[in-house]
């Protein structure tokens, strides 16, 4: 693998910045869809007992439960996923579908619980980011390189959220798990880079950086490859395991963004810092 570092690295810092700002723009203009966990409502996986199409199933549920907000999210053979806007008790739902379908899984979340979960998300993500930042500051005890790492992590999170907004991945407990994971995981390559550039004394900055890039790309490559495998398997084999496919999708976006933020932005800032210092 031959890598040549460009001289105009300061200009390259702009690329991840532009992506981050546009992600922020997408996020603010399109917003995030919220899953049943957060906005309240009910979701059920069904095994149909007789053949019917989506509208038939929808009408049956609407009539039996006397509700309007019913959405047949997917239907494959005799498997169907249905979402309802209000939190219907599971016994009521099972009774309504007697003879039509068997309930494989059911989840209903009242609006109070959803609001509570949303509040928890803000706190958990906020503190996760804060604790990560403190750990980075303690590790390097050097303000500008630490801030560069923290900035790269913030960009990764914003790009991941922007990606969620763009690809309509709903904000759910699962995708928040992935965001938390990303907060801790995406800084790995930044820590590698910063350590190699600040702690190693031998070799030119660019040589050390190239070594770090090789290692870092292998790390990102294996992580993205394994998450892609997880995503493909869950989407095609177990579409019900939304927890896993959502986590995988968010991590794929975030870790791909991390390649840009680490090697264009963080490396750029560090080179700038080291050159200004010497």
């Amino acid at each position, binding site marked *: 693998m031959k890598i040549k570092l460009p001289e105009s690295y300061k200009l390259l810092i702009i690329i991840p910045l532009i992506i981050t700002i546009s992600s922020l723009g997408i996020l603010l203009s399109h917003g995030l869809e919220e899953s049943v966990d957060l906005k309240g409502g009910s979701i059920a*996986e069904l095994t149909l007992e007789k053949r019917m199409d989506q509208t038939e199933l929808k009408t049956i549920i609407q009539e039996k439960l006397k509700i309007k907000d019913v959405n047949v999210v997917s239907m494959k053979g005799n498997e169907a996923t249905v979402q309802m806007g209000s*939190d219907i*008790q*599971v016994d009521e739902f*099972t009774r309504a579908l007697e003879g039509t379908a068997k*309930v*494989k*899984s*059911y*989840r*209903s*979340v*009242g609006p109070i*619980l959803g609001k509570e*979960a949303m509040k*928890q*998300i803000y*706190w*958990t993500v906020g*503190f*996760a*980011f804060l*604790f*990560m930042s403190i*750990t*980075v500051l303690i*590790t390097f005890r050097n303000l500008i390189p630490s801030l560069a790492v923290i900035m790269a992590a913030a960009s990764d999170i914003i790009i991941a959220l922007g990606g969620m907004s763009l690809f309509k991945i709903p904000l759910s407990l*699962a995708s*928040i*798990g992935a965001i*938390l*994971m990303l*907060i*801790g*995981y995406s*800084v*790995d390559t930044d*820590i590698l880079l910063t*350590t190699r550039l600040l*702690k*190693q004394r031998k070799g030119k900055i660019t040589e050390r950086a190239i*070594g770090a890039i090789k*290692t870092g790309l*292998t*790390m990102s*490559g*294996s*992580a993205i*490859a*394994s*998450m*892609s*495998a*997880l995503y493909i*398997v*869950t989407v095609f084999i*177990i579409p019900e*395991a939304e*927890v*896993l496919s959502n986590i995988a999708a968010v991590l794929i976006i975030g870790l791909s963004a991390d390649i840009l933020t680490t090697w264009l932005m963080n490396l750029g800032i560090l080179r700038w810092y080291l050159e200004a210092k010497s």
Partner: protein
Amino acid sequence: MRKGISRFIREPRTIILIILVMISLAAISTLGIPQGLDLKGGSIIQIQLEKPVDPATMNTITSVLDKRLNIFGVKDVKVRASGNQNVIIEIAGVKPEEVARIVGSPGKFEAKIDNKTVLTGADIVSVQSPIIRGNQWEVPFRISPDGAKRFAEAAEGKAGAPVDMYLDDRLITSPEISPDVAAGKPVTDVAITGAESTRESAELKAKEVETLLKSGSLPVKVKIVGVSSVSAELGGEFTKGAIIAGLIAIIAIIIILIARYRTPVLVLPIFFTTLAELILILGVAAIIRWNIDLAAIAGILAAIGTGVDDQIIITDEVLGEEKVKRRRRMFRIREAFFIIFASAGTLIAAMLPLAYVGFSRGATGIGMLAGFAFTTVLGVLIGVFITRPVYAKFMEYIIG
């Protein structure tokens, strides 16, 4: 090379790792891996109380609910408080609708004469098994002498007047006051009776009334705010899917590593280290009975993912410069571990708030992801302290 292998095998860290892997394998095969509700099938019911309560009241509520579910024959049930206003009930392999009904009732018992309450649930001393005759049912119970006296006083001279018995403000039955009681004689043995359309529903109804009387009343109104249930069949599919996903992920990683290093001598140890980490995590889960659910599986994947990253860092540090002196190589491995510990630190730091919510609030809201935080932290700790140092020793003695 041969000298390197014998040194590697005699290394204390290697021996400890081998012993721990064997203990884990033994634990997994004898104790089994405890599965979460979403893998083995089961339900989580989330309950919200009318208002926040103090710990003592919360205790009463959880024990009343627990007792009720046990009386109703629901096995494998866990009732736990979550904060000061929520209760979470976890049940394995039962239909949640029955549980929802039995839990949802406050169980407030009142007997009224002339619309004045003379008996409450607090007066009930014991409840006998229901008697079913055809579609008629009867639940006999005994009240305290105090309650009986109060009842007799209220009933004095009112022979033939109805006693309205309410359960959760629902009128269940209105037996007439017998001449005996009306004469002022306290009676401690009373009964609630009723009739349903079939024998089956009479049995069910009687059981419900019995349960409510037996378990006492809940001090506050409760409301079911969330239900999440997964059938055993779907749970099985999840398990199968997770295993397939894990295998394909490992294959994907191996392909990337072979493309990068072009030698199985490096890929195999990384594979075995990863496998050892997986076995150790599952071993710990088996020993401490930590339920592995979908979120926990995601956590295991995350921990293993960082493990592969760390091994790549170690490998590149050792291979970075050809023919380096031993002291220099030691220095480089130390540097690799600086990166590894810092990375582990940030990941654990990011997971701490989630773990905190999970432990303090249980499986509600974001606490559903507690398994994710726990297995990630556990896996990372096992990795940085046990398995990855062994990999470093392997690199140092055999490859370096």
